[in-house]
């Protein structure tokens, strides 16, 4: 099918790629380079673009700032809290939605709805669900004899509250991707396995999972990257504060605080760059692990 690449075909392809490439360079690549350079500014006039002194002091400052350490830890806790549960839940729901049930379209819409709803609207609804006196969640917990929890004002529970909201919000997207993956699996495999007498669980572990591994790989990379970038949910759920006593301060929130609230432009750039490196390393590790376990047919 594929012929050898020639200069002509390369040029033609390049023309097709150019529009997207231009946008990427202007809005992604250039800012990444620029913010990397900016993270070394020490003495500078941001608005007139004059730099008097450069150095690594911003990075030293970052790692000495307890709030940055806290933000990094919180971000890790958030990712660990959200990603595995989100993947297991959405895979389960996708399997269910992939089976023969009535009102399939209705269910698929229901599960996708949170994803297309604005974060602010979602956060307002959840802040009522989490309300300590009037909230639904504490009401349900009350049935099991659990005392009301101050989800949004107790630093111990603020992060779990944020994780619950984020899992719920992200489910729809993951489900859709898993569904697409499931429907790509050739039904004949299953028929053959049934003929051989494989149980449903065996069919799931030995066929569905391996055949779904490219999808799984994609979902986990996207989820982890998105997890590291969490910001909107916090801002909306805690009304423009990083949770009680900074309990949900994450790296992106830290960047926001430094840049927009505190006019610490170069420090914000340094923090953003550290986050970039962290995400980069994680993605690399996933790629290496992925090579071992992902089967592309």
């Amino acid at each position, binding site marked *: 099918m594929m012929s050898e690449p020639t200069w002509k075909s390369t040029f033609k392809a390049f023309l097709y790629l150019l529009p997207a490439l231009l946008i990427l360079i*202007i*809005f*992604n690549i*250039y*800012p990444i380079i*620029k*913010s990397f350079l900016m993270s070394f500014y020490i003495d500078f*006039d*941001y*608005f*007139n*673009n004059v730099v008097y002194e450069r150095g690594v002091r911003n990075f030293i400052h970052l790692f000495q700032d307890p709030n940055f350490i806290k933000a990094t830890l919180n971000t890790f806790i958030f990712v660990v809290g959200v990603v595995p549960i989100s993947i297991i839940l959405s895979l389960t729901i996708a399997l269910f939605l992939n089976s023969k049930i009535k009102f399939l379209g209705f269910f698929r819409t229901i599960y996708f709805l949170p994803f297309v709803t604005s*974060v602010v609207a979602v956060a307002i609804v959840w*802040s009522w669900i*989490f*309300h*300590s006196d009037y909230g639904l969640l504490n009401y349900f917990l009350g049935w099991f004899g659990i005392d009301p929890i*101050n*989800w*949004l*004002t*107790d*630093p111990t529970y603020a992060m779990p509250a944020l994780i619950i909201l984020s899992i719920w919000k992200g489910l729809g997207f993951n489900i859709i991707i898993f569904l697409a993956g499931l429907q790509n699996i050739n039904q004949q495999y299953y028929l053959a396995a049934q003929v051989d007498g494989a149980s449903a669980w065996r069919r799931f572990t030995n066929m569905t999972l391996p055949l779904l591994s490219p999808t799984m790989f994609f979902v986990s990379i996207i989820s982890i990257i*998105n997890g590291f*970038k*969490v*910001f*909107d949910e916090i801002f909306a759920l805690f*009304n*423009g*504060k990083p949770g*009680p*006593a*900074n309990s949900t301060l994450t790296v*992106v929130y830290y*960047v*926001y*605080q430094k*840049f*927009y*609230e*505190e*006019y*610490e432009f170069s420090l914000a750039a340094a923090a*953003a760059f550290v986050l970039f490196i962290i995400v980069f390393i994680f993605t690399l590790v996933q790629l290496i692990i992925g090579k071992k376990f992902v089967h592309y047919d």
Partner: protein
Amino acid sequence: MKKSLLLTLLSMCFILLLAACGGGNPEGGEDNSESGEGNSKGGEDTAAENEAAEEVEIEFWHAMSGPHEEQINSFVDQFNSEHENITVKPVNQGSYDDLEQKIMAAAKAGNLPTLSQAVTSVIPEYMNNDFIMPLNDFIEDSEIGLSDEELDDYVDVFRESSQWDGTYYSLPFSKSTRVLFYNKEILEDNGFEAPETWDDVRNIAETVTKDNVVGMGFENSYESEFQAVLNQMGGTFIDEETSEAQFASENGVEAMSLIMDMIDEEIARTAGEEDYMSNPFGRGDVAMYIGSSAGIPHVAGAAEGNIEWGTAPTPTLDGEAATVFAGNDIIMFNQAETAEQKAAWKFMKFLTSPEITAAWSMESGYLPVRYSAQELEEYQSFVEENDEYKAGTEQFDAGFFTARIQGSNKVRNILLEEFDNIQLGQKTVKEGLTDAQDRANETLQ
């Protein structure tokens, strides 16, 4: 989605790129419009200038929406019809935070509007970055300036908060102060009048706290109340001259304890997860609370059909009255041309004229910024009918404002964090305040 922040950052960098490629030098072309180097504006402009030398259009950025925005638009219409050659274009930029961010981006790109609303505490940042216009030349102008009587007519606390070392950088516009809201029913049932002192507050709170009612309420950011009590005790919050935080003094610990003890004893609460106190107060969950006078319409909305309520000046301590005045000013940026600046100044003067500030106050709930506005018949009959608006203006003489220094946002973030730590019992009042002061002074250096 989560990219919105990143996108903003990126687009700002993009703007920068465009600005760099545009070839226009941002410093030139400001005052010397005759030099004919219209490379950034195009050729039409010069032609238009010749035709009608005084025709100017100025942009006014603000963060007012809903009925407030309509009111601003009607002021603008009135001004535009009174001034043939001037067209003011009001632009709503979203919330105060949005407005601040857009100013930052516009400053970087070199296309700031001529006028904007701005929180007083952020003005020092604009001064330091040199894109805000001092107003003394306009004020002292014999033709379009303000006479001494007019200047004295601006409420003292606002006039002072618009000056830095004797230089005016803003005129007061949407200003508010703290007032005490009280639930008439609960207080009357227990035989109380509106509290006048902190002792009264404590006394009432102790008595009326029961079942689902908490006696006293504070907003989540009660640093205004902390500052007021600290001021009443004779302490200093932040010294504006030296930019030094001094709130962890003995007075500071005492002032914070006054508030915190009530919270610990559960005769007072903060708004907590409800963001603002107006909702719990409107439901009747708290008997009293101290909040912004700009919140009066919100309280009215939340209380409608539920409770009877009133306002009183904030409590005194040992006979000392003190209350924080805050809010937004109008500022002028220095990227505009002289003619535009003159027109902008006229609009600033217009917006703060007694009639307009009175009309604005009646519509929005912000305080009138001129003494004479309060004497207007219309305003007096308004206050007669809506006596909840009395408490704000009654406190003018006891008014003071938070130190306006560079880095005040940083200090605020630190303070809010340490207040949380104190309230959650992770630190004692003394530890929390001392840590906050040390951290504040470290960043203010």
